[in-house]
């Protein structure tokens, strides 16, 4: 499945596993991910890809919770514009029609992992690699 979100999901999973391993190891239960609106990632597709990535592995069933972060829109004439203007990268100020300067919103950050600590410490490292 060579979709864009697949590669991202593999990286997200790898980052999560590293965090779990760094904290003693265990079975991943939930990951919280911050996704900016300009990160070129569709949350629904990402969750779908995530499920495919973890299926059949030691962390099968772990939940991916996506937190959505809008970009900041700034108008040279009106200042910061809080109302969501139409479009993604190319937006026009809803008040004066000038092109908005759009910043931030490119986040793709693993915020938090929840896991069931493995008492024996016998949990494998991630075996999947990006293709």
């Amino acid at each position, binding site marked *: 499945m060579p979709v864009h979100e697949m590669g991202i999901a593999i*990286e997200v999973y790898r*980052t999560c596993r590293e965090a779990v391993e760094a904290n*003693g190891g*265990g079975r991943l239960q939930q990951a919280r991910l911050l996704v900016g609106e300009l990160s070129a990632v569709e949350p629904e597709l990402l969750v779908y890809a995530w499920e495919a990535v973890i299926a059949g592995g030691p962390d099968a069933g772990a939940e991916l919770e996506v937190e959505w972060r809008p970009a900041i829109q700034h108008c040279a004439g009106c200042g910061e514009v809080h109302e969501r203007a139409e479009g993604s990268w190319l937006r026009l100020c809803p008040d004066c029609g000038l092109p908005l300067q759009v910043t931030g919103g490119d986040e793709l950050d693993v915020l938090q*992992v929840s896991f069931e600590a493995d008492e024996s410490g016998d949990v494998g490292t991630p075996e999947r690699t990006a293709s």
Partner: protein
Amino acid sequence: MKQVVNVKRRALAANEERAEALRARFADTGTLVVNLISSPGSGKTTLLEATVRALDGELGCAVLEGDVATERDADRIRALGVPAHQILTGGACHLDARLVEGGLEAGSFPEVDILFIENVGNLICPTTYDLGEDFKVVLLSVAEGDDKPVKYPAIFARAEIAVISKTDLLPHVPFDLDAVREQIATLNPDGTILLTSSLKDQGIDAWCELLRSRLTAKRRAQG
């Protein structure tokens, strides 16, 4: 026992760290690195053929070619006497820093002035992955239509240079050049727009001049 750990790490941090290591390596050798991105068939390889011909005897070039399958692009570059290595992604839609590392190792190029990385033909996925390049170049051929910058805004916002290619076809296709210029300028006010026809050898001088000045600037900045 359930544990909750705050991570706050970019999911692509591993790629970004590798890309920074590559960037440091290219800084050491004073190599300018250009990441070419476009949809399939916009003329990336043909532009590279015209470029290495134009720079022949003046600047040393090497090319990493990214494709899903076949050695065709690398063969075309090698036919011109320029070292090239084909990275086959086997289905993946973009190159990442790890693939570039591997490609450099497998290609074992001599030290060159300019390394071109031709990404897999795709306007979406390659945008997200840093390859350690100095800048990204996006190509848009006039046959693709004049609405592409606003339809695929991320790459046009992030590429420092936009090359409008196959301009020899302008009389034959509906393509509003001014509208495209305006879209690109809005998405990337500091970007540069170049017009080329690789087959007719138009605009190649300006493109090569830009490469020369970027290479000089990079080497001057590093003393």
